[in-house]
């Protein structure tokens, strides 16, 4: 082996991963889809309403824990618990929004971040309800929530085998479910944005006083924007729990809200499809580090992944504050 071949080895490993279906479906695909849902809410808030919501991880936690507690502890069915958990999360969003949305941008950011941290502290310490740091033990069969989702997975697996796929990707059903949800959410949000309601949101973003002068109750619109965003976070939380098979406080650290902002600016502000692109790019960057054959341990690799997130945020804010594909005339963070 020539020295050059040795040098090229890490690159070869990366390129190998690019052809690996499990990388794109199970590792990048599912996670990117979950974060696309998560960041679609941020897009509605930041890109279209001008609300700097730093509490998205907290809303995701409320959604995931409500669902878990309703199914595992209260014995509700999967399909009944889902709308109830979404309603709880939206109510929590309104509860936080009522005081916080009256604040100016930087205070709103700090207040929503504090609210998300309060949620996480409760999740860590209210052990009877949440299982503390160990997390909420999901269903008895090891599947998260009850066996409803496991049944769907097995059915899909059976169909794929019947079609002649000898060893189907285990996470393919989740992958499809997540991305169908993302596609539906993008379509719905894009349509809603064209309604008078959506236009009022943009008016509030551009000039709240002007919107108010035209008789629009800006506060109510902002509250609705936050409630819808928290519902999207709750959906992301359900999928996150299904993907990780557990619900634990560490999944809802502020870090993940900030990754959501990275996704947002990567995809460009004021663009819903951009969020999906941003999520895929972000998670390819983050997960790609696994495949670079660097001589470092798993812990250093984890550190490196989040350094990349930091670097992406810094560079984008320094050189392209409207995001990679954002429209400068539409929404710029620099104003």
């Amino acid at each position, binding site marked *: 082996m020539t020295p050059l071949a040795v040098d090229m080895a890490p690159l070869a490993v990366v390129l190998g991963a690019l052809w690996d279906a499990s990388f794109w479906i199970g590792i990048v695909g599912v996670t990117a889809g979950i974060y696309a849902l998560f960041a679609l809410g941020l897009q509605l808030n930041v890109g279209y309403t001008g609300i700097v919501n730093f509490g998205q991880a907290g809303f995701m936690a409320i959604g995931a824990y409500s669902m878990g507690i309703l199914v595992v502890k209260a014995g509700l069915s999967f399909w009944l618990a889902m709308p109830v958990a979404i309603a709880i999360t939206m109510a929590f969003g309104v509860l936080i929004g009522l005081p916080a949305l009256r604040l100016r941008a930087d205070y709103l950011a700090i207040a929503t971040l504090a609210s998300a*941290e309060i949620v996480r502290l409760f999740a860590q310490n209210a052990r009877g309800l949440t299982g503390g740091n160990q997390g909420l033990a999901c269903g008895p069969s090891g599947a998260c929530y009850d066996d409803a989702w496991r049944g769907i997975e097995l059915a899909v697996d059976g169909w794929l085998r019947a079609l002649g796929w000898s060893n189907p990707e285990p996470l393919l059903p989740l992958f499809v479910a997540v991305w169908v949800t993302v596609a539906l959410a993008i379509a719905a949000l894009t349509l809603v944005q064209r309604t008078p309601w959506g236009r009022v949101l943009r008016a509030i973003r551009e000039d709240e006083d002007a919107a108010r002068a035209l008789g629009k109750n800006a506060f109510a619109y902002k509250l609705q924007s936050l409630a819808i965003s928290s519902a999207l976070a709750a959906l992301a939380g359900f999928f996150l729990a299904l993907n990780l098979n557990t619900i634990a406080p560490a999944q809802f650290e502020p870090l993940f809200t900030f990754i959501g902002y990275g996704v947002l600016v990567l995809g460009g502000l004021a663009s819903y499809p951009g969020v999906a692109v941003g999520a895929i790019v972000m998670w390819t960057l983050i997960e790609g580090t696994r495949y670079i054959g660097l001589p470092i341990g798993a812990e250093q690799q984890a550190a490196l992944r989040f350094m990349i997130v930091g670097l992406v945020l*810094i560079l984008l804010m320094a050189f392209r504050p409207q995001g990679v594909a954002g429209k400068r005339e539409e929404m710029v963070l620099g104003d």
Partner: protein
Amino acid sequence: MESGAAPTQRGPSRGPASRARLADTRAARLAAGHPARVALGLVVLLGLVLAALYGLRDVAQTGLNGLALGSIYALGAVGLTLVYGILKLVNFSHGELLTFGAYVAYLLNVTLGLPLVLGAAAAIVSTAALGVAFERSMWGPMRARGAGLLQLLLMSIGLAFLIRYGIQLVAGSQIRQLEVDRTATVSLGGGVSLGQTELVTIVVGFLVLVAIGLVLKLTLLGKRMRALADDLELAETAGIDTSRVVLYTWLFAGGCAGLAGVLAGAVTDVRPELGFGLLLAIFAATILGGIGDAFGALAAGLVLGLVIEWSTLFIDFRYKLAVGFVVLILVLVVRPQGIFGSARAV
């Protein structure tokens, strides 16, 4: 929305301000001039109520713990508030300056086996230098380009990640201890005892806080800093060399943050999340004291530390951080100019 939206400014009201408003401003100015006195009054009142309910010993014990915690908050907040006030930078990477300081102290104190005092001195100097380095490489150029509040805010979050996980990349995420005797306690009589480390933290914290207060109050540089935090354009018009003051502000903010990091590392432990874990409480102290108000931040840091530790008398101690966050949200909602601040643009 941002500063300048509201026409009221600190200082004697001019123009059409009503009499009532004038009186209000005067009272607020009095409070702003003597934040320590106001804080002392409030804290003594709260302490007396708690002492009546839970006994003097418990209140004194938790109060001392609170002062140790509060000195760390105060040291963190005094730098954050000046940067926030002067440069309009909501610096989410301020916590990582504390972490950096703690690791520098660890490097000298444990890795090289030097006394902790030297480690602390090195932490102060190097963190101050780090603050200036980021000002020169990032914040200064971005301000010159007219970057907006949110743009800088997200950039500071990116920087926080870069520093925190950079430290983790080099040092690993294991929890480390500085060379301090964590078991030694000092009995203060009446059944109240305090860990030696906590006692040192309180003493060092108070000495430094008083020194900072004197520098800000008496020296020309301190006055200039406060003038800039109050109104940058007015200060420039008055002939203050703002770029020099900005430089000193970062040296000051970084140095205080470095020391706060060392104290926090000594009282608890040294880990990559050290600073970020303190950041929200430091923000709370900053807002509680009124943004840009250095004295307010000092007093509010101590008050917050006391309130958090006193809350453990009637709330499960595991939720004490949540108490700090609830205080933060309450202050934002009820009195966003801070308890010591005058009603200005909020």
